[in-house]
């Protein structure tokens, strides 16, 4: 696949050079399979095979881009896309900076993250997994929902500057299973991310769902009082906050535009708790990490927050050009951030529930539909969802209705942070909008914060 994509791009490169065009040429290929479940049934079983070409023409302080979705063998249509970008370029208005054309110094191909057995799992394999994960959990009221997205993504890019290319191929699966009570309108879920077939563990999904099901069927439902509470966030919720932090805290372009919690003078300052170390780079197992960026730069793993100290901002080439900065090797389809684990040897919900405690703890595995209320304040609002529990200080467990928090990132990862689990896990953050692009974050399994303010407490799950 990658070889065919590279040959196609090399042919287009020749075509562009014959027209004296400077351009970056990229091909994206996805073979996606998504099985969706609702009310105990498969509600949809889809496959999409899509090839996308992108041609960005570079001129004197200007760029223009033509994209095309077509077949991989539609070379004539692809040449027309090159022509189109060339025709658009003179009409682009001049920029205040010169954009940098990629000049890839050597071929880079990475297929270590591709497992054909996962990418081509097929409907039977998917349904076997689902059957194992849900075995014995459903009844007349409790039915299974969710989705199993699996597939392969291939990427190849080069430019007219050199004949070398950067290419990669990844397999991935993103699985969410939901057990829903139609009568009581609650939902519990379990999620899994996979890069290879060996990562699939339906029994772990079943164990998690079974534990939560037991709590939700037998424990008293409660509406929490408004005000501060100690919260232990699960991996999904922590990943949500980390995802915001990676942009609102570390993106150089966002900082320059006033959409960051930091300013340049914060570099070298302790801005978060000393417990917070955030890395990004290829040494991030399970997070679909890429060794080389689209400019052919080899990437290393760096700490961007180092024990709470901001070490710098992330600059892709475009932002670096615009703001006269040094690029950091981040022209990528996706980043691979990791929040390093802490020292609390409590690494799953069952252990948390069993651990002694001197105050009530609200366990929030997942935040639903978060929004940025104020980017420069890092103020994020969202609602608890999917299997929250109230762990009473006397050892009892209750099932809370959903609550809303509106908290600042600098508090979540700063003064309000109490502890992080000693083990981390991968949380899949892939979006199925647009083209397939597997992505994930590595986060501690649990994160405990104090004084989280319940500002709305609802009467339903």
């Amino acid at each position, binding site marked *: 696949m990658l070889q065919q994509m590279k040959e196609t791009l090399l042919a287009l490169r020749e075509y562009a050079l014959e027209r004296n065009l400077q351009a970056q040429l990229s091909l994206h290929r996805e073979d996606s399979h998504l099985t969706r479940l*609702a009310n105990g049934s498969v509600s949809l079983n889809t496959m999409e095979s899509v090839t996308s070409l992108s041609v960005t023409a570079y001129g004197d302080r200007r760029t223009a881009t033509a994209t*095309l979705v077509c077949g991989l063998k539609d070379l004539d249509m692809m040449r027309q896309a090159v022509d189109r970008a060339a025709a658009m370029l003179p009409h682009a208005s001049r920029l205040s900076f010169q954009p940098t054309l990629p000049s890839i110094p050597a071929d880079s191909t990475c297929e270590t993250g591709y497992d054909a057995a996962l990418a081509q799992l097929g409907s039977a394999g998917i349904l076997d997994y*689902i*059957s194992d994960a849900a075995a014995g959990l459903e009844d007349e009221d409790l039915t299974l929902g969710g989705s199993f997205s699996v597939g392969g993504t291939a990427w190849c890019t080069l430019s007219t500057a050199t004949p070398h290319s950067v290419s990669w191929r990844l397999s991935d699966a993103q699985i969410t299973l939901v057990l829903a009570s139609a009568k009581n309108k609650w939902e519990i*879920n379990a999620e899994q991310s996979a890069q290879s077939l060996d990562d699939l563990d339906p029994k772990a999904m079943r164990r998690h769902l079974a534990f939560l099901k037991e709590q939700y069927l037998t424990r008293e439902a409660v509406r929490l009082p408004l005000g501060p509470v100690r919260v232990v966030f699960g991996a999904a919720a922590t990943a949500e906050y980390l995802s915001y932090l990676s942009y609102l805290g570390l993106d150089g372009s966002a900082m320059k535009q006033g959409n960051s919690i930091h300013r340049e003078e914060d570099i070298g300052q302790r801005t978060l708790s000393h417990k917070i170390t955030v890395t990004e780079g290829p040494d991030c197992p399970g997070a679909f990490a890429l060794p080389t960026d689209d400019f052919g730069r080899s990437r290393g793993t760096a700490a961007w927050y180092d024990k709470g100290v901001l070490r710098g901002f992330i600059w892709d080439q475009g932002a670096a050009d615009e703001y006269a900065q040094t690029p950091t090797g981040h022209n990528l389809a996706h980043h691979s951030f990791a929040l390093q684990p802490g020292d609390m040897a409590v690494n799953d919900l069952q252990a948390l529930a069993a651990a002694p405690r001197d105050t009530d703890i609200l366990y929030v595995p997942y935040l639903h539909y978060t929004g940025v*209320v104020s980017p420069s304040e890092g103020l994020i609002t969202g609602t608890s969802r999917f299997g929250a529990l109230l762990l009473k200080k006397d050892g009892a467990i209750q099932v809370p209705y959903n609550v809303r928090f509106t908290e600042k990132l600098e508090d979540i990862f700063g003064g309000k942070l109490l502890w992080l689990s000693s083990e981390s896990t991968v949380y899949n953050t892939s979006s199925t909008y647009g083209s397939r692009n597997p992505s994930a974050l590595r986060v501690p399994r649990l994160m405990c914060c104090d004084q989280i303010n319940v500002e709305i407490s609802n009467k339903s799950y």
Partner: protein
Amino acid sequence: MTHPWKEELNKLLLQGASYADVRYTPREDSAALVMRNGNLLAFSAGSERGFGVRVLYQGAWGFAASSDLGSITATFARALDNAKSTARRLSRPIRLADKQVHTGRFTSPCLVDPAQVPYDEQVAFLRRVDTALQQTGVEQRMIFLRTQSRLTEYYDTQGAQIVKEIREIFPYLGIQGRDGDGETQSRRYSPPRLGPTRGWEIMQADFFEEQAARMVRELNETLAAPKCPSDVRSVILMPDIMYLQVHETIGHPLELDRILGYELSYAGGSFVRLSDFGALRYGTDKLTVRADATMENSPGSFGYDDDGVEAQNNLLIKDGILVGAITSRQMVTEANDKMGREYFKGSGGTARASSFRRTPLERMTNISVDPGTDGTLEDIIAKTEKGIVLSGDKSWSIGSNREQFHFANHYGYLVEDGQKKGVVRSCAYSGETLPFYNSLAMVGDERTWQVEFVPNCGKGMPSQTMQLGHGVPVCRFDNVKVGE
């Protein structure tokens, strides 16, 4: 080029399928221009083509799509295989509600196709508006222009043949500045419906310059303003936030697939139960809401949906009582079965797919609040003792069953004893859906009513972004929690 769609569909019937349809997009052209602080950072044009096949086999759906027209037969076979695989885990076979079979064509109203406008003219437009935004207090300027032209052919095994050609144009302006505390404040503008058509003819530079001047004035007022108080008061929602309130807390919870649990793993469910139809008091008797896909010139009007059902105008809430939902052929049969009666008389014609590579889902059309009888904004302010007028969709966050919400706004000013008072910054309000609509105290008349466009409603897995509209008046809700 003629493609053998009907032959391929017939083959599926011979292989045991009970129904199948294909959507073929021979051409979709799009363009995006992004100018930030005078720099044209994105200047892109895109084309795509492809087809998607949906097959119903023994009550189970299968779907396959490809951008490769050399793989038509294989893709049809894959869709059938997917349906056959699905049948292995199927607790309730899918039935489709009856429909009238149509042969038809729909073209969205457009005088000047944006794709035919010279690039220089498009870029010059952005430059002119950017100049208007470049004023004291403004630290960041953003102009975004997205256009789209899609031709879709639809065929199904019942004999339907529908061609749709839909052109969209979505301009957007945004500015930011820093307030006295160093925090970022912003103001944005996306035009509502501006007339009977929506091609390049709506891009009147004088009009956008006027909007730019207003935005700059309101941003500077906000930058100099004190913080919004945190208290409980009446909120008077302008159409540019009322549309989002309706979208999130009436539109989404009334999608029948959400009500039936089809979105639980991702977007969420709905607090509405099937037993609520015809009985639930959703709001005060001032609240009447409809799903009107026949409205003139809106992205939520499309002629025929992607089930091949003709567009309709249906009531959702009548005088405060829940009476209808946003429905498709599949969901109404399931809902009726579960209700034990034929409450839904047929598909509401709202199944739409965002692309050839996605399957149709219940999507909002034009979910609109009927205008009321409480006059103009000024009339409403004059009758408000303690309130705040809110404008702009700065942020939004909604509970998974749409039972509660939090919205932040770009611009707001207080109202005391029927008088406009000072502007305040960092405005936000929150509440619970049913108590909120049951506190609807005043609904502006037709002079306050306008159709807001939504270019980016997200739903489904694989995810889909859809375009639609909301006709909304100025509305006042009492006893609402405001403040950050």
